[in-house]
């Protein structure tokens, strides 16, 4: 029924069944987008863990990171430097942006009811999107090549250097962050603040600085995500962050919000689920399925896969 192209047969086929090859191909697709979700989800989860706020503007920080990247790359090229150095510019700018957003919009509302914080976050997200539309125009802009996109063949499975790099770097960053939070002094301060705000203050932890640092790190990670995202989907436009941010948030909730390994697991599961749904079930309803996962998780186990149930005490 389907022609098997000659080139696949010529390669060393470790796996005989073509369907198995296709499945692994889809799996790799899912892992790639999943690792980007995971990187972004890390930012959400770290921020939520410490200040119990869903930072709606996080997705838009990614968008800004991408714009910084495409602005920096021509400058780098003029100096003969390789394109991927734009990551440094992106990370620094986004970290600073995250710090500023927290200081200007979220810190004044730290003691306000949850409703106000959510609305402010939505407002901040809208602000970033519309600012980008004014400054950069709503027309999408292409991204110059950052990492190689030539297909590499291994055992009949095709992927690019881009894909490989995305997955490897993302996982390494996540492991590094987990290590940092578990073992370093600042990491322990972060965990202390998320456990009990007041007690941490009494113990002499500079709460404001810790929170600012959390935002900065979260946003910096998002910048990594944005560069990988832009090299895979080389088109930047002001609204690109909203759907990505939403899906990454769902990933964070899926894995257990506030828990760092949860973001990793949630992101990868989301990516693979989305990929397999598009491939094997129905590409039209992939979005609905993704949101369906969220609803099922929230109804069955709101604390997520790795989460613990806590009851609120009066």
């Amino acid at each position, binding site marked *: 029924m389907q022609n098997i192209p000659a080139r696949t047969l010529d390669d060393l086929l470790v796996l005989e069944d073509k369907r198995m090859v296709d499945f692994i*191909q*889809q799996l790799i697709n*899912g892992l*790639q*987008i999943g690792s980007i979700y995971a990187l972004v989800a890390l930012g959400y989860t770290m921020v939520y863990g410490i200040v119990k706020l869903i930072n709606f503007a996080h997705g838009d920080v990614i968008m800004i990171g991408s714009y910084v990247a495409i602005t920096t790359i021509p400058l780098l090229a003029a100096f003969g430097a390789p394109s991927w150095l734009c990551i440094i510019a992106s990370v620094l700018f986004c970290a600073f942006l995250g710090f500023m957003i927290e200081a200007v919009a979220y810190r004044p509302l730290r003691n306000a009811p949850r409703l106000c914080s959510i609305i402010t976050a939505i407002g901040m997200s809208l602000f970033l999107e519309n600012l980008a539309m004014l400054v950069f125009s709503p027309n*999408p802009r*292409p991204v110059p090549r950052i990492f190689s996109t030539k*297909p590499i063949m291994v055992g009949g499975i095709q992927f690019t250097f881009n894909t490989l790099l995305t997955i490897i770097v993302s996982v390494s960053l996540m492991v590094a962050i987990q290590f940092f939070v578990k073992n370093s002094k600042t990491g322990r301060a972060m965990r202390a603040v998320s456990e009990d705000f007041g007690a941490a203050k009494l113990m002499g932890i500079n709460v404001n600085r810790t929170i600012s640092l959390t935002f900065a790190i979260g946003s910096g990670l998002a910048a990594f995500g944005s560069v990988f995202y832009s090299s895979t989907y*080389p088109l930047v436009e002001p609204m690109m962050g909203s759907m990505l941010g939403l899906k990454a948030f769902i990933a964070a909730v899926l894995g257990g919000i506030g828990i760092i390994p949860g973001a990793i697991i949630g992101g990868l599961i989301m990516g693979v689920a989305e990929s397999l749904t598009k491939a094997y079930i129905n*590409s039209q309803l992939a979005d609905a399925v993704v949101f369906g996962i969220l609803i099922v998780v929230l109804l069955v186990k709101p604390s997520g896969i790795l989460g613990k149930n806590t009851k609120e005490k009066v």
Partner: protein
Amino acid sequence: MKKKLALLMAAVFMLSSLAAVSGCAKKDSGKILIGGLAPLTGEIAVYGNSVKNAATMAFDEINAAGGVLGKQIDYKVYDEKGDPSEAINAYNKLMDEKMVALLGDVTSKPSIAVAELAAKDGILMLTPTASAPDVTKPGSNIFRVCFLDPFQGAAMATFAANSLKAKTVAVLYNTSDDYSQGLAASFKAQAETLGLTVINYEGYGADDKDFKSQLTKIASSSPDALFVPDYYAKDALIATQARGAGITAPILGADGWDGVLTSVDASNISVLNDVYFSNHYSVQDTSEKVKAFVKNYTAKFGEAPNALAALAYDAAYMMADVLKTAGSTDSKALIKAMAAIKYEGVTGTIQYAGSGDPVKSVTIIRIVDGKYNFFDKVTPK
């Protein structure tokens, strides 16, 4: 404090509404008012501005040559922000200002909304670029300059079968977009009529950026051609990912691809080789009329005119033409003149055979090395 604030707000509200009422009353009786609707802000502002620029240029040329019926044409275009309800507001505003005819809207959804009202009002409505079939259905006073989406879809299927000698085709379309959905359906229908096999018919959502799952599926069935009927931004992403997934077959598209070169960076431009899409005209057309139009537009606006600009330019001239033929601004006379028009425009010969949809030929553009090249013209039977 609260009462003061409330009173102040009420006063502001009163004053501003008074200002709005008074501002609307003036009307210049020495000019013929032609209303325009276009998305001048929002995500598709690029399209709206192309239409506005080209139509304005055309009307300026007409006015410089003495106007129509001894009067100058006043072309007033309002922003509908890409939203049907805003389009209705703007349309109502123009009706209040007693416009003689409507040149608009640009995209299909707002055009359909306005067409419903225009049909009841009996005013002449000419849309340069709205290509969905439903636009001209509400009434016989609604016309369009461009060809229909179903016609485009069928033309591309014919092109695939006859020029590319394809036997199997795949389709990847946007399920949230009426333009994409309509084109995909008509392509499939015609392909099957011509004896082609549609081996994949995949979809994706409005906000999707990742098409690897669908493209991997398509790649493994190795079609002779892939049809992607969407707008240029998505098309750029799909083309990049398709080549990355190992699809070397030609990619086919419709007029939404126009402008895709601005969405792919020079370093990646090779992904667009072997792309064929249907369009309303080619910048490389050697006819005098097209050459003059391209020259003037580029000089005035700093960029080459896209297909929407070309269509809007023709629309403006057609308006002037029917005014001359009818000899008055009476709507019935204008509509009659439009139904009988035969106009040689930048986008080809435009005439209507009993409906508001013109019978026109489709230009096929091929992208080679980062340039739009004229490839072929497909004429309807």
